[in-house]
């Protein structure tokens, strides 16, 4: 009897150390998580916008077919779709979970997926602004209540990633059909639902009652608010005061104050956003490859990182965003034109220019960090005898001028993680609207197309490596650096999913008090 009791006692004690599948937070949890953001949220219809800031909201209230895990090598995970496969080169089949519900309790079926994707494909800009990512799709149809078939004009390695973007979060067909519902896009299948949007001040989401997915960690915070605090210093002070729990993009100059505050954590992780110096290779003088190589060797990237980022960043040689599939780190790139002033001067001579004989224009946006980078590049190029005239303009004008090909050199940035095709195609493909380099290179175009469609993954990887090395040698741009993601928050913050590119997910975040 005694022995049985002892055994039972030991078993019970051991069991008490086995954690529950999702352990509830211990201690008091703050009801409302407040996140201070640097821009205003401007649109809550996923397919009518293209600003990353708005994705903060969609991550709470909506779900996509699949989830791309940026912190795990861009692995694709199920979200609304349980599984997917290419039936053949032109048919991609999704099988949905059968218990998905929208926040209003109605079931989510293949009809809603078909409705969403067809609406997203619409060329009517009052219905969708994102149809450009879906040009490969010819048709979307429901095979049954939980199976969706996407018919394409060709096979694509990256269509699945495109379908995982927030603008294609699944919306409710019934909500759009309801004449009393003036804002049907607010209804999603995510754990939170829209509560309030005070123009110019904040957006608040509240925990929904109908969240369907009990296999995932449950959300905790009762409300999540995004507060628009545009001034970085004021945002940092609001965090120190406890008015907000998270400060996105704290000012670099104030980090030491935040680090010294024992109630706060300053979190740093590798970023993905690439800042680069681009050339217009279609016109003089940068139609000269040797000249571009000379400029590349003249730029002291470490100085730029030190001055602009206070050392919080990494220089880069590849054109792909750091961490992207097939990305080549600096030590893996073949060759390259890194900082070497004597080599820069030799290359300038080989390009046919004497020191002091060349004056070029550098188009730069007026805001940070471009306005700080531009004078550094000017000084670097002066060291090898190239005079640089900086032309400052706002971002909207810069984009238009570069699209028209007026620039010689320009400073810009790029932030694409999962879809390398977007980088190769949108930056370097002949005649693509955002090919500000004005590059027309058959090899680049062919390799870009191959990388998109090659099914042998080993070959595909090699194509991308070869293309990166080719672009390093061709130098249509000088990749400068990738800044670290820096974010400051209340030390009690738990459950936040932070990504280097800024596409954070707060749906499981809360403050443990």
């Amino acid at each position, binding site marked *: 009897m005694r022995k049985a009791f002892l055994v039972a006692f030991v078993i019970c004690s051991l069991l008490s150390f086995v954690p529950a599948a999702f352990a509830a937070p211990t201690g008091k949890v703050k009801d409302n998580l407040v996140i201070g953001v640097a821009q205003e949220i401007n649109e809550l219809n996923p397919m009518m916008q*293209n600003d990353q800031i708005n994705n903060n909201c969609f991550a709470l209230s909506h779900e996509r077919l699949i989830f791309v895990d940026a912190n795990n090598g861009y692995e694709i995970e199920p979200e609304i779709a349980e599984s997917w496969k290419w039936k053949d080169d032109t048919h991609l089949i999704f099988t949905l979970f059968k218990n998905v519900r929208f926040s209003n309790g109605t079931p989510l079926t293949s009809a809603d997926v078909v409705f969403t994707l067809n609406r997203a494909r619409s060329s009517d*800009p009052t219905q969708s*602004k994102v149809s450009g990512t879906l040009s490969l799709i010819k048709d979307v149809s429901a095979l049954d209540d939980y199976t969706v078939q996407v018919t394409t004009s060709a096979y694509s390695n990256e269509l699945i990633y495109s379908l995982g973007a927030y603008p294609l979060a699944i919306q409710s067909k019934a909500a759009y059909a309801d004449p009393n519902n003036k804002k049907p896009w607010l209804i999603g299948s995510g754990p939170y639902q829209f509560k309030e949007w005070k123009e110019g001040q904040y957006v608040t989401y509240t925990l929904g009652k109908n969240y369907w997915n009990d296999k995932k960690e449950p959300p905790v915070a009762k409300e999540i608010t995004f507060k628009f605090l545009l001034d970085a210093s*004021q945002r940092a*002070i*609001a965090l120190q005061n406890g008015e907000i729990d998270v400060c996105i993009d704290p000012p670099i100059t104030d980090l030491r104050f935040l680090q010294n505050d024992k109630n706060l954590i300053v979190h740093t992780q590798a970023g993905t956003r690439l800042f680069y110096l681009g050339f217009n290779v279609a016109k003089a003088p940068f139609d000269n490859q040797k000249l571009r190589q000379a400029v590349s060797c003249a730029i002291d990237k470490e100085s730029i990182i030190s001055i602009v980022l206070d050392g919080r960043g990494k220089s880069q040689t590849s054109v792909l965003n750091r961490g992207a599939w097939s990305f080549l780190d600096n030590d893996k790139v073949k060759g390259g034109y890194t900082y070497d002033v004597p080599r820069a001067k030799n290359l300038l001579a080989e390009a046919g220019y004497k020191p002091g004989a060349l004056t070029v224009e550098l188009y730069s946006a007026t805001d940070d960090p471009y306005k700080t980078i531009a004078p550094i590049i000017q000084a670097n190029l002066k060291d090898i005898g190239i005079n640089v005239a900086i032309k400052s303009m706002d971002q909207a004008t810069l984009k*238009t*001028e570069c699209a028209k090909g007026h620039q010689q050199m320009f400073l810009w940035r790029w932030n694409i993680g999962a879809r390398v095709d977007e980088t190769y195609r*949108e930056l370097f493909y002949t005649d693509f609207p955002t090919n500000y380099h004005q590059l027309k290179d058959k090899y680049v175009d062919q390799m870009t197309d191959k990388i998109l469609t090659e099914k042998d993954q080993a070959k595909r990887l090699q194509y991308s490596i070869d293309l990166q090395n080719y672009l390093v040698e061709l130098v249509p741009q000088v990749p400068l650096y990738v800044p670290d993601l820096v974010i400051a928050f209340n030390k009690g913050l738990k459950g936040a999913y932070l990504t280097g590119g800024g596409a954070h997910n707060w749906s499981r975040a809360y403050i443990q008090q």
Partner: protein
Amino acid sequence: MFRYILKRLVIMVPTLLITSLLIFWAMDLAGGDPVDQILPENASVAQRDAMRQQMGFNDPFMIRYLRYIKGIVTGDMGKSYISGEDVFKTFMGRLHMTLLLGGTALIFACIISIPLGIYTALHENTWKDTAAMVFALFGQSMPNFWLGLMLILLFSLKLGLLPSGGTGGIRYLILPSVTVGLSLAALLTRTTRSAMLDVIRQDYMTTARAKGASYQRVIYNHGLRNALIPIITAIGMQFSYVMTGSALAETVFGWPGIGRLVVESINKRDTPMVTGSIILCCVLMAVINLSVDIIYAFCDPRIKAQYSSKG
């Protein structure tokens, strides 16, 4: 008087027309394709062209402008390119915040500056006068975004007395209105001092005192009343400025006013929002200036008589 007011309202119409034309033209000249702001970067050429066609961006300048004016005349100021929201509704949604901030700043400024201006005029060329003028110089020279951050650091972070920004009650209004109000107070102090100095040297002031009026009565009833015209003018001009231009203070304090709205809309090439907001700001300024003129009539019977005779 009524005819004078009506005349002023009628004159507003060509003023607004010219303003709208200038703003529309300026946005056109500024460069930058609004389609780049509306569509994602990976939008195809066909999609961009379709959007330009649909939004009428390919039409000549005058066609676009006249279409816009036709919309205004029929009560439609258009929709924001970025948010899709109605321009008038968005502006009005923010106007009350700017009125609140500006009004509070002005009241704060008047409470400080008018008594201070009178005091320094009565103590001309003393150390008190010098100290007040140093304050005025400091207040006018200091950038208000810097002042705002300093006030936040002191009252919000160090002392923990007030919130650092946002909205939500009278506590949130204190720091932004002091920031905006201090530079107003500096200017109004100098204006009040200058106006009072002109008045206290007049013969009727000596006469009033000689006739046995108390010192307070002489200064406030005889002196201040006659000094009010330039003070009211300065208040009116500064109020217009505050109503339409406190974008920096609004950004520092996260105050959702029209200044911030206009600046953000310009950066995003949101032409309907910029044009509509500036036209509405012009209407606001015209109404404020008209109100100032009407107040003149109540303060100075000679001016009221002028308005009445000229109609």
